């Protein structure tokens, strides 16, 4: 499916057919009184501008800066995350898993696209694609190579397949050279992919 996504922009007729169908559907549903277009606009705006990986970055930065918060996050992530105001749909039951020098965590949903919306927003296309969903559980080192990095030999890899309503957030390792940094500065180092386990946080020299 989405493995083919990149080819779709070559196929204008198919796209416009879908476009027309969605437009027709929205008109029917609106005129029948089932949906309110203003509510649709607000849903889109929420996930385009308010709910995204910056939320998760704040959670990670706090865990790096505050050992007591980190302990609460690892023990029971849902209330710890809600302390920062992030909660709800597709994040009703969150578990945080911590990377260490010996253990790397990676999150996937092989059956569909389960993803912790309140902290990461909506999932990227690759996360929902056939290549990621098939490869992550069998060859996670190969996945990391697709993302351009090699995990040190001997590091254990733990893959979490989100098959139920539990959502997983990876707590990446804090980069060295960031002692004394504020939470705001630390959050700038936290990438979306580092919270899925397909990337690492930025290094201090990569941020201004």
């Amino acid at each position, binding site marked *: *499916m989405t*493995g*083919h*996504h*990149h080819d779709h922009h070559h196929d204008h007729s198919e*796209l416009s057919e*879908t476009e027309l169908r*969605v*437009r*027709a*559907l*929205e008109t*029917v*549903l609106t005129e*029948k009184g*089932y*949906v*309110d277009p203003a*509510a*649709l606009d607000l*849903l889109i705006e*929420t*996930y*385009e501008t308010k709910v995204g990986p910056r939320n998760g970055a704040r959670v990670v930065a706090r865990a790096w800066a505050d050992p007591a918060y980190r302990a609460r996050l690892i023990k029971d992530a849902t209330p710890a995350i809600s302390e920062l105001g992030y*909660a*709800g*749909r597709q*994040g*009703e*039951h969150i*578990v945080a898993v911590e990377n260490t020098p010996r253990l790397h965590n990676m999150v996937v949903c*092989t*059956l*569909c696209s389960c993803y912790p919306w309140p902290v990461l927003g*909506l999932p*990227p*296309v*690759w996360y929902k*694609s*056939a*290549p990621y969903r*098939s*490869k*992550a559980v*069998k060859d*996670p080192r190969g996945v990391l190579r*697709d*993302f351009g990095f090699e995990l040190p030999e*001997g590091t*254990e890899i*733990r*893959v979490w*397949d*989100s*098959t*139920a*309503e*539990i959502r997983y957030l990876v707590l990446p390792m804090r980069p060295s050279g960031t002692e004394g940094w504020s939470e705001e500065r630390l959050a700038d180092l936290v990438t979306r*992919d580092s919270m899925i386990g*397909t990337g690492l946080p930025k290094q201090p020299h990569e941020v201004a």
Partner: protein
Amino acid sequence: MDGAHDMGGVAWSGPVRPEPNEPVFHAEWERRAFAITLAMAMPGGWNIDMSRFAREDRPPAEYLSKSYYQIWLAGLERLMLERGLIAPDEIEAGKPLHPAKPVAKRLTSDGVAAMLHRGGPTERLATRPALFAAGDRVRAKMIHPPTHTRLPHYVRGHSGVIERVLGCHVFPDSNATGAGENPQWLYTVTFAGRELWGEASDPGLKVSVDAWEPYLEPA
């Protein structure tokens, strides 16, 4: 059901292709399809497991050739057609041709924040003790239900260890068919990579799934 959606370990895919600076949506119709899908669950009255089944229950060639939001759209259309909320001729015509079906409630803009905040928690009060405890060895049953299930094929028949007891949760296999929530104990079960993929697998790999008690037997 066995279907193309159950992708873990399937060999036919190429490399993962990250997209730098990826937008949240790639087209206006994706925005609308996403929002309509979220909004229609309220008047439609279906649950998330029914939605997932409506998306995955289609021939592999169709599932694999549709983009992600095209699958959402196809699933949504099926749920609405099944319940008589719309008719096929209305989608073709792009306007209502039949009277609207009375619906109990609909999502208005002042209800969006509350709906998203509320979400859909699935944990329920337990009515009996859990059969398994952390550290127990279990085997994922070899099952192939024709209806919705969340036990991925690649762990079936394999043995692993209960890592966490996650509480009692709505059982998708029941909830998807309209047979009720039928809450069951849920566990994180961890499998060695070599148990799943053989001796050539990375010795440092462990894979876990979250599995409901009816999926498991003592090993």
